[in-house]
């Protein structure tokens, strides 16, 4: 982080073409900008027709929007990927072990590595999960680890999305679109495939069938419905896996099983890939106002009648305050040093840290502990004095709600603009599947890109775009 010059994944720090981009560059040199501009428009048409849209929160009408797609692939070498995937696997193993421990014997607390109140006072902690072990011992079946890069060999984990990571449909559709538009690129570059994700997902979920399942497991995807911002993805995944897409009102509890209303009567579900939050899952056990969930599903779950993926209560592992303990967590459960680095994090609940953060607001990124989607955060270096002061007031009134991190010099990759290639900041979200059979990481993932020059905010809800992400066969 000491370098002042930003690391570009194509050109490094000193305008030298990096190896992974060699194949792309030789293709790009022979391309005509006019043709590429037409291709960029064509891509948007494909996305609109396919219906790859998301609904914007906070809009009165259920307006469907496209996430901007950039046609320039982001390229990662096989060697770089190998190290990343090892680090991710280690981290995800540790997270599952941590969750099992927290909801059972709580050894890590007894060992004094994490303060008790970090858990008990945490709103993501779910007492209902105490003393139970989900089928196969897996808590977080699907993880989307957010990574950022600052140098040739420097990657940081920004967030462990261990609840319901979204965006995988974009990873798949981005690749599909690129294959359609630039087949020649793929015959010249050996790119590792991502298309197996849906079948891997189905197999991985089926491998976590509950004790009550006595045949081939029936898997279903639970969606809040067509007005949810990620409905397209829910439908897409159910379709690609060849399973039913259900809503709460299709389900009920009968004789200790969760069953769905079909044209042939009620049929039990073994594994439910739910895309609704814990709080809405079961109006009898959680939020009584919820119309999205299934009354009594938690009781069926605890009795071994269904597998819920991800397990309720996994949020405790991707909470931003717990995040700061991840190096200890990895070490505690794997006995190894964490392969992937954490971003140094100040917990504002601690007086010394708070004092430091308040003194250095203009240089730090401050985030809400439970926030997501890039909302409610402060990016010091790009904020005005007025914005910083307004944030200072919020922070002082409720310090434990915040953590702070240094502003990372996120790497850039080229995007396609009217004038040709231009560098923009990116992050990377690989998708990880866990089952008793093992951990499976799809090579690549979702690259989110801040389309505004100089911007560090990559969230799609705030003007970010996506691009295809290649992992090369070395």
């Amino acid at each position, binding site marked *: 982080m000491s370098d002042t010059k930003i690391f570009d994944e194509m050109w490094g720090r000193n305008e030298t073409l990096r190896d992974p981009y060699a194949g792309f560059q030789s293709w790009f040199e022979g391309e005509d900008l006019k043709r590429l501009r037409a291709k960029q428009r064509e891509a948007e048409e494909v996305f*609109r*027709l*396919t*219906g790859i849209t998301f609904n914007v929160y906070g809009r009165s009408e259920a307006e469907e929007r496209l996430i901007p797609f950039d046609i320039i692939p982001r390229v990662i070498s096989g060697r770089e990927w190998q190290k990343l995937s090892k680090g991710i696997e280690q981290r995800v193993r540790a997270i599952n072990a941590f969750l099992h421990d927290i909801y059972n014997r709580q050894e890590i607390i007894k060992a004094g590595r994490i303060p008790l109140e970090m858990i008990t006072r945490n709103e993501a902690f779910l007492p209902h999960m105490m003393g139970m072990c989900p089928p196969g011992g897996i808590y977080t079946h699907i993880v989307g680890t957010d990574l950022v890069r600052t140098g040739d060999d420097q990657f940081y984990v920004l967030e462990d999305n261990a609840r319901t990571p979204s965006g995988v449909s974009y990873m798949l559709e981005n690749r599909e679109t690129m294959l359609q538009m630039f087949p020649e690129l793929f015959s010249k570059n050996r790119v590792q495939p991502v298309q197996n994700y849906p079948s891997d997902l189905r197999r991985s979920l089926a491998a976590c069938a509950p004790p009550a399942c006595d045949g081939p497991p029936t898997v279903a995807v639970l969606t809040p419905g*067509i007005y949810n911002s990620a*409905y397209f993805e829910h*439908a*897409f995944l*159910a*379709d690609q896996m060849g*399973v*039913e*897409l*259900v*809503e709460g*009102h*299709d389900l009920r509890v009968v004789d200790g099983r969760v069953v*769905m*209303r*079909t*044209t*042939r*009567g009620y049929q039990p579900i073994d594994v439910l890939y739910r895309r609704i939050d814990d709080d809405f899952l079961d109006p009898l056990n959680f939020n009584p106002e919820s119309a999205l969930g299934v009354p009594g599903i938690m009781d069926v779950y605890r009795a071994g009648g269904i597998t819920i993926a991800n397990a309720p209560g996994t949020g405790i592992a991707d909470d931003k305050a717990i995040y700061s303990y991840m190096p200890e967590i990895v070490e505690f459960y794997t006995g190894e040093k964490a392969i992937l680095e954490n971003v140094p994090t100040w917990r504002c609940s601690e007086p010394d840290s708070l004092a430091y953060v308040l003194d250095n607001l203009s240089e730090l990124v401050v985030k809400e502990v439970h926030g997501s989607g890039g909302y409610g955060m402060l990016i010091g270096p790009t904020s005005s004095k007025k914005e910083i002061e307004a944030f200072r007031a919020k922070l002082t009134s409720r310090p434990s709600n915040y953590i702070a991190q240094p502003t990372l010099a996120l790497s850039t990759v080229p995007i396609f603009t009217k004038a040709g290639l231009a560098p923009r900041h990116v992050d990377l979200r690989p998708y990880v599947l866990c089952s008793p059979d093992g951990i499976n990481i799809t090579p690549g993932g979702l690259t989110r890109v801040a389309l505004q020059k100089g911007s560090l905010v990559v969230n799609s809800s705030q003007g970010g775009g996506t691009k295809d992400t290649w992992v090369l066969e070395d």
Partner: protein
Amino acid sequence: MLGKTANGLYWMFRYLERAENTSRLVDTGQRIGLTRLGQADDEWTSVMQSAGVIEGYNVHYDETSKDSAIDWMLRSRDNPSSVLSTISEARQNARLVRTALTGEVWEALNGCYMATREALKRKVSERDLPAVLGLIRQRTALVRGATHGTMLRNDIYDFARIGTFIERADATARILDVKYYVLLPSNFSVGSSIDNVHWETILRSVSARGGFRMAYGSQVNARDIAQFLVLDKRMPRSLNFCVSKIYDNLAYLGADYGAKFPSMDLAEALVNRFNAHDIDAVFEYGLHEYIQNVLTSLRQLGGQIEQDYRFYE
């Protein structure tokens, strides 16, 4: 299959069929208006009656005019049966049942929605009307083509077909119901020029002028038209044809599910009724009463299918 999905498929295809029928009726109204033989405004009233949208129209407008009738039938968001509303509804249902559709069907429908919405953004001028109606016809036909060409012949397809034919039978029955008086026996022998206009209207409303000529020759008369639209099994929009298709698809479902549901009995009774008499018997019974009867049976059948296959909780 989820009960909800069966419901979504059924309505997706009902709405799609309705969009097509409505645009066909607009086309008919426009063409008849141009011949200047009938009373143009009266004609629009009966066109809207046939489309089942006249009550809503009268709430929103004080008098009948061609422009406002066309706008009401094609674009109005206040009219749940306008082309724009029905295609939006079809798409909404398609999103709901996305996992039951092939990619090609979904894309054809989504493309249909995007193109129609674009074409109906503004009031459609008389000059643009033929092109807009052509576009709707073409786009809905694409969805139908993708459905035939890519969907598995399983229960998904059966529910899609049942929705299509219930809607189509309903539409044909309504056209007959509005115009039954021009088909009464007093008109059997001689056709005045006014009668000819009405008869042409009916045939246009079901896109069957060519089909009629092929089957009955160029001499148009009321008895043949009634025979054609009620009983003729070759005519894809006749009541008999639609009802036998509903029966067929219910039978496939029954065989597939290994169960005989009450809706099957209702459909069977309906089919038998059509096979039991000729058109003269229909006239003897009373064409108007007969059609009313059919409309009631169709409503009952639809309700029974909903129950049998658990469309709702």
